[in-house]
Structures are given as structure tokens and as C-alpha cells.
């Protein structure tokens, strides 16, 4: 686990130094919020409309901004054959995978931490239960990163990875996206954690299953 953290720390240090991916992710999510706030300016005063639109809007911003980041997860390792250098170290491939998933997750959290307040300001909207919605976002983001990291490694050597990755990833994300959007909607409608327990369970089970599977399959992904 400690080596996974070193890998994640290395990735985050590189990213915070260059901001190659983070800037694009942030700009994308903010632009999405601005465009929607402009197009929905007529109904911004009606909070019941925003209640219904907000879950989809937030998750669109998170997922597509995350997609920008996840395509670069392993692309940065292809320069100077760094991935090969990493594989030469006495590190289990599952540890490499975990480190990469953690760094992807952290980048998405940074984007989400910026996006949510931007949404609240632009839509003049008050999110009622911030701690509970944070749990939903945390689990949903974990699910996205867990699957996205595996597919990013799988597609890194392909010429059309920017196209191929979303095509493969989005269908696999459906089981985590549906409960995440539903849970977000319920929280925005004023419900508490008890009412979204089923959705949280579904997302947690998805995260655990795909994390375990991805760790098992990752070695074959690297060799392929």
C-alpha cells in the first residue's frame, strides 16, 4: 500500500507542477456550469426546477471532466517508457494500479471541490446536506476512477485512446451513475442519508467488485 501512495504522490506532484490535466478539467467543468446557468437563466428563480436538473448537471460535469483526466492517467507514463521503468521495480502490478486510481481520484476531487461552489453561486442554489452529498460524490468518483484507471491502461497503447476510452468506459459506468444521480437528487430534494442507503450500498458494492477485479486483471493489461 505504501508504494501505491508513493506512485500517487509522484503523479500528483507532477500534475500540480505542470497542471496539464487539472487546468483542462477545471475549465471544462466551469464552462459546463456557465453554459447551463445561461441557458437556464429563465428558470433560475424556480428552485424546484433546479432540484430536478442539478443532479444530472453536476454528474455530467464530474464525469466528462474526469474523462479528460483519466485518458492521461497512463499517457504520462508512456513518455520515456516510464511505465516499463515502473514495472522493472519490485512492485506488484496491483500496487501500480492502486496508485494510479488514487491519483485519478484526487484530481477529480479537486475538480469537484471547485465545481460544487461554482454551481451554487451560478445557480443561486443552496445544497441542503453537504456531508451526505459528499459521501455520494466520494463513492461515485471512486467507482469512476476504479474502472477508468483499468481502461486507461488498456487503451494507452492504442492510437485512438481518446475515442476508445469513453466508448468503453461510459457503458460500464451506468451501474454507478444511476444510483449516484438518484441519490444526489434525493439529497437535493431534502431527504437524508437513511433514504439513500440503498443507492449508497449499490455504489459501494460496485466500487468493491470493480476494484478487486481491476487489481486482479491489471497485470494482464500491462503485458498486453
Amino acid at each position, binding site marked *: 500500500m505504501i508504494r501505491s501512495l508513493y506512485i500517487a504522490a509522484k503523479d500528483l506532484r507532477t500534475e500540480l507542477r505542470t497542471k496539464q490535466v487539472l487546468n483542462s478539467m477545471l475549465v471544462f467543468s466551469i464552462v459546463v456550469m456557465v453554459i447551463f446557468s445561461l441557458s437556464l437563466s429563465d428558470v433560475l428563480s424556480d428552485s424546484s426546477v433546479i432540484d430536478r436538473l442539478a443532479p444530472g448537471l453536476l454528474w455530467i460535469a464530474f464525469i466528462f471532466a474526469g474523462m479528460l483526466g483519466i485518458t492521461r492517467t497512463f499517457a504520462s507514463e508512456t513518455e*520515456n517508457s*516510464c511505465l516499463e521503468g515502473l514495472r*522493472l521495480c519490485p512492485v506488484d502490478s496491483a500496487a501500480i494500479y492502486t496508485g494510479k486510481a488514487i491519483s485519478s481520484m484526487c484530481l477529480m476531487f479537486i475538480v469537484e471541490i471547485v465545481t460544487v461552489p461554482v454551481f451554487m453561486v451560478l445557480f443561486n442554489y443552496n445544497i441542503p446536506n453537504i456531508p451526505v452529498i459528499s459521501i455520494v460524490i466520494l463513492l461515485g468518483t471512486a467507482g469512476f476512477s476504479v474502472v477508468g484507471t483499468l481502461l486507461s491502461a488498456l487503451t494507452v497503447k492504442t492510437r485512438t485512446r481518446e475515442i476508445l476510452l469513453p466508448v468503453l468506459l461510459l457503458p460500464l459506468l451506468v451501474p454507478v451513475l444511476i444510483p449516484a444521480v438518484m441519490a444526489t437528487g434525493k439529497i437535493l430534494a431534502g431527504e437524508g442519508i437513511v433514504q439513500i442507503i440503498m443507492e449508497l450500498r449499490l455504489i459501494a458494492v460496485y466500487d468493491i467488485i470493480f476494484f478487486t477485479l481491476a487489481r486482479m486483471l491489471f497485470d494482464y493489461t500491462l503485458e498486453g
Partner: protein
Amino acid sequence: MGSIISVKGLNKKFAGHVALHDINLNIEQGEFVIILGPNGAGKTTFLKILETLIRPSSGSVEIGGMELNRSALQIRKMIGAISHESYLYSDLTVEENLRFFGKMYGLSDDELIVRIQLLLEQMHLEYRYLDRVSTLSRGMKQRLSIARSLIHDPEIILMDEPYTGLDLQSACNLERLLLESSKKATVLMVTHDIDRAFCICDRIIILCDGTISSDIRQKDISSAEELKNIYTTIFDGGA
């Protein structure tokens, strides 16, 4: 001295193409072995199998008495790999790269301080240790790449065309470093530079179409010219 690398009946196929066929080889501890052969002879594939990056199709490979497929992680601790690729992160500094790879090899902070200082002095890079790798010249990157591969003081050094892209002075520096390293470690080097390799090796293996065509002791050959003649004869005869 015993064999540190033992290869028996090694075969490797890629989608129907035979890259290596029935390789049998024992390499003694402390030997400096060069592997020669034309492009596509299977040199890099052989090295990548020893590096545990590629699994053999059949046959057995033992390194330090450990079976390759069963003890890959333990074997990697023994190996330092140098390639024409630097395996370095361009946006990290010289020191950060060495520290990161040192941590990957399980070195403690105290060990790292000593090793990084020693290696940077040996590679004459101590004055650049806070600079990003992207600002280094090709020769400096190659020296840093060697430092990276030696960070855990490996028993076996595997090199794949380490002279690629180096100017004359950098190549001479590299040669000096290799000679220093080979005093302690077993070295396998894939190269096309027969003149340079002849001067520093103990043994020459020539690969042709995935098989060992020749396995010669350096002391049995009088000069690099004779080695070139042997090399040419093998491939002219095969043509």
C-alpha cells in the same frame, strides 16, 4: 563461482513468430557478457524476459536460484536495467526521480540520502540535482538513467544498447562507469558497437534468428577485428 543466470530450453513466440528458439545459457556471477546480433535476432526479447517484463512461451529461466515466473518480484530486486529509453519522469527533478525509484525498491530515507549522493557524484550530476529532467542533455539523462538503475545496488545489470544517441565523450564516460559497475555486478549488454564492447567484456554471445549462433570467451579472440570477422562469417554464411 556459480551460475547467477541459468536458461534452459527458452522459447518465445509472438503471434506465430518465433522470437527465441531453444536458448540454453549459463552466466557466471561477475561475468560481463555482450550479446550481439542483427536487428530482429531476439536480443531485446531475451533481455526483456530476464527483466521479467515478458513471460517466456516455454523453457525455464532461473536468476539467483529463483524461477522467473514464480519469483518475479524478488528477481527484480536483483536487477538494474539500462536501456536507450531513460525510464525517467521529465517533470520531476533529478533528485525526485532517484528518490521515487529508490522508494519503489524499498530503500529507507537514510539509505536513499547516502545512495543518491554517491550516485550523483559518480555520474557528475550533483550540481544538477534540483533541476528537472526535461532540462538535461541526452548524455546527462543517460547518466541519470544509469544512476536510477543502480540506486538499489543491483547484483545484475541488464543493458539494451546503452550507447544509443550518446556523443563520443558521453560514450567514454558511460564505458568508464560500466567498467566500475562490472567490478561488483554481473553485466549483460546488448549492443551493436563491437569495438567498444570487445574491450570491456569477458564473453560474447551472438544471436541469429532467435538462436545462439556463437558463444565465445573474449580471451579466446585476439582483437575486435577477429570478432567482427566471426560475426560477418556467421551472417554471410546464413545469407
